[in-house]
C-alpha cells in the first residue's frame, strides 16, 4: 500500500463518518432510527442485503475455505446456498414486510409468548456480536499494512460503532451501498489478471492434479457431513435478523422480494470470483504455508493499480463494517425494545432513551467482539460456531411463525427452542460419528427441534385469538 492508497482509505472513511453524521440529524425517533421509516427503495435494499451478507467472513472467509474445497465450493456451497433461499425471497420476504411490526422477538412473543421471546432475544443478541467479522478485519490489516490484527480490528470496530450510533438504519443502508459497490467492483476487477496469470482453468487443473485432485471435482473437496452441514447452514438466513430488518424496512413487499432475487445472481457471480481466487491461492501455495486469508488480500493488492488498491481495502473493510454496524444496530434494538421492555413489565422506553441504550449496546458488542474474535483459527469457524447455536434454537419457531398459519402453542415454541439448543450443546460436547465421519450437532439439533415443536404443539395455549385482537396480520 502506497501513501496515496492510504490517503484514499482515510478520505473514504472520513466520508463515511460524515454520511453517518448527516443521517444522525434525520434519525431522531425509533421508526426512523431502526426501520428507516420503512422507506428503503429497491436499489438500497439490494445494496444493503448484498453488503450485509457478504461481509468479511463472506469474502475473506469464502476465499479461505475454497483453498481446500476447490470447485465443490461453487457446486455445493454457492449453488446450494442460494437455491435453498429462493422460498425466503419469494414467499417469506413479502410476508415479513407486511407482518413485521417490530423485531424478531416481537414475532416470537406474538406466537409463543414472553418466555420464548426472551430466549430468542438472547440468542439473537449473541449472534449480533459478529465475532467472525472482527476476526476477518485482522487478516486485512495484516496483509495491507503488516499491522497488528487487534489494532486494525479495534479501529474498524470503532468506525462500525460510529456509523451505528449516528445514522441508524438509513445511515447503515447508505454506507452499505457504497461499500457494496467498491467491494464488488474492486474484487472482480482484480480477478481476471490473477486467473489468467496461473494459466486459467487448465493451469489450475494441471497444478492441483497431483497435490489436491479432490479440489477439481464438483463434489470432491468437501466431506459429506461437512457438505450436509453447509447446505443446512445455508437456510440459516431464514432466521437472520439483518434480513428480517431489511425486509421490514423496504418500501413495499415486492421491493424486498425482488431485491433479494437479484442478489442471488450477483452472489452467484461473485462467488465464482471468490471461490476461484481461493483455488488460485492454493495453486500458488500448495502446502498452504501462509494463512490463505492473508495471502488473498496481499495477492489482490499486488494485482491492482494505485488508488484502486486503497478502494479495494475500503471495500473489504467496508463490507466488514456493513455487517458489524447492521448487527450492532439490530442487537441494540433488541436489547432496548425487547429485553429491557419485557424486564420493565412491558413498559416502553422513550425514543431518546431507546436510541441511547442501542448506542451503549453497540459499544459493548464491539468490546466483546474484540475480546473473542481471535480465538478461532479461521474466520468461517467463528461464523459457523455462532450460526449453529442460534440456528438450532430459532429456525423452527421462526419459520413456523412466518409460514404456518395453523395452531401454534406457547409450549411448541419453547420446546423446539430448548430441545434444539440443548441437543446442539450436548452433541457439540460429545460428538458422534457414523462410518468414521463426525456428525455436526446441528444435523441432530434441527430435526429434534422440529419434533419437539410437533409434540409441544399438542399442549399449551394457542395465541391466535390474542394476535387477532392485537391486529397482527395473518
Amino acid at each position, binding site marked *: 500500500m502506497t501513501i496515496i492508497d492510504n490517503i484514499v482509505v482515510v478520505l473514504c472513511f472520513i466520508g463515511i463518518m460524515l454520511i453517518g453524521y448527516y443521517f444522525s440529524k434525520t434519525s431522531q425517533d425509533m421508526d426512523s432510527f431502526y426501520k428507516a421509516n420503512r422507506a428503503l427503495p*429497491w*436499489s438500497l435494499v439490494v445494496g444493503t442485503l448484498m453488503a450485509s451478507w457478504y461481509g468479511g467472513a463472506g469474502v475473506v472467509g469464502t476465499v479461505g475455505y475454497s483453498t481446500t474445497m476447490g470447485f465443490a465450493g461453487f457446486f455445493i456451497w454457492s*449453488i446450494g446456498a442460494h437455491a435453498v433461499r*429462493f422460498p425466503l425471497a419469494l414467499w417469506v420476504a413479502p410476508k415479513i414486510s407486511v407482518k413485521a411490526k417490530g423485531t424478531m422477538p416481537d414475532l416470537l412473543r406474538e406466537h409463543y409468548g414472553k418466555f420464548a421471546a426472551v430466549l430468542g432475544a438472547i440468542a439473537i443478541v449473541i449472534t449480533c456480536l459478529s465475532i467472525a467479522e472482527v476476526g476477518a478485519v485482522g487478516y486485512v490489516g495484516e496483509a495491507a499494512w503488516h499491522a497488528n490484527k487487534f489494532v486494525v480490528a479495534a479501529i474498524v470496530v470503532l468506525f462500525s460503532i460510529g456509523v451505528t450510533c449516528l445514522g441508524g438504519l438509513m445511515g447503515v443502508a447508505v454506507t452499505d451501498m457504497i461499500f457494496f459497490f467498491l467491494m464488488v467492483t474492486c474484487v472482480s*476487477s482484480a480477478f481476471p489478471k490473477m486467473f*489468467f496469470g496461473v494459466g486459467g482453468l*487448465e493451469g489450475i487443473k494441471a497444478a492441483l492434479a497431483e497435490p489436491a485432485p479432490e479440489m477439481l471435482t464438483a463434489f470432491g473437496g468437501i466431506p459429506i457431513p461437512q457438505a450436509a452441514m453447509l447446505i443446512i447452514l445455508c437456510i440459516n438466513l431464514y432466521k437472520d435478523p439483518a434480513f428480517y430488518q431489511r425486509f421490514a424496512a423496504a418500501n413495499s413487499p415486492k421491493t424486498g422480494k425482488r431485491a433479494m432475487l437479484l442478489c442471488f*445472481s450477483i452472489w452467484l457471480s461473485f462467488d465464482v470470483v471468490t471461490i476461484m481466487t481461493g483455488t488460485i491461492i492454493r495453486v500458488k501455495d500448495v502446502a498452504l504455508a501462509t494463512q490463505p486469508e492473508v495471502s488473498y488480500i496481499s495477492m489482490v493488492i499486488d494485482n491492482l493499480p494505485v488508488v484502486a488498491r486503497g478502494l479495494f481495502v475500503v471495500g473489504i473493510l467496508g463490507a466488514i463494517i456493513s455487517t458489524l454496524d447492521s448487527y450492532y444496530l439490530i442487537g441494540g434494538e433488541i436489547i432496548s425494545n425487547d429485553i429491557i421492555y419485557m424486564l420493565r413489565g412491558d413498559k416502553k422506553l422513550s425514543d431518546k432513551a431507546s436510541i441511547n441504550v442501542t448506542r451503549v449496546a453497540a459499544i459493548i458488542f464491539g468490546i466483546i467482539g474484540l475480546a473473542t474474535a481471535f480465538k478461532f483459527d479461521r474466520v468461517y469457524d467463528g461464523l459457523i460456531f455462532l450460526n449453529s447455536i442460534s440456528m438450532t434454537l430459532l429456525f423452527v419457531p421462526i419459520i413456523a411463525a412466518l409460514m404456518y398459519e395453523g*395452531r401454534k402453542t406457547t409450549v411448541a415454541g419453547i420446546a423446539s427452542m430448548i430441545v434444539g439448543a440443548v441437543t446442539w450443546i450436548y452433541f457439540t460436547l460429545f460428538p458422534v460419528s457414523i462410518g468414521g465421519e463426525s456428525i455436526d450437532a446441528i444435523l441432530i439439533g434441527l430435526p429434534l427441534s422440529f419434533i419437539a415443536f410437533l409434540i409441544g404443539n399438542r399442549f399449551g395455549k394457542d395465541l391466535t385469538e390474542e394476535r387477532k385482537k392485537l391486529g397482527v396480520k395473518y
Partner: protein
Amino acid sequence: MAKPEEKKTEEEMQVEKVEWIGVDGALVLLYIVLACIYGYGILNSVDFIIGIMAPGIAICITVAVFLKYCTEVFSFATGKKGKK
C-alpha cells in the same frame, strides 16, 4: 385447530402472489441460467466464462444498481419525487 380455510384478504393475496411470467420469474430464470453457465464453464475449462464473464456480470449488475440508487438520490435532491 386454527382456521386456514378463512378467506384471505386482497392485500394478503397480493403479498403472496409470485409473478412467474414477469419480473419474479425472470430473476429466478437469470439465476438458473447463470448457475448452469458457470457450472459448465468450471467443468469444461471455459476460461472466458470464469475469467471474464463471471466478474463482468458481477460488476455490470452492481454498477447498474448503484447508478439506479444515484438517480433516486438525485431525484429526491432535485425535489422531483416530492411533487405531485
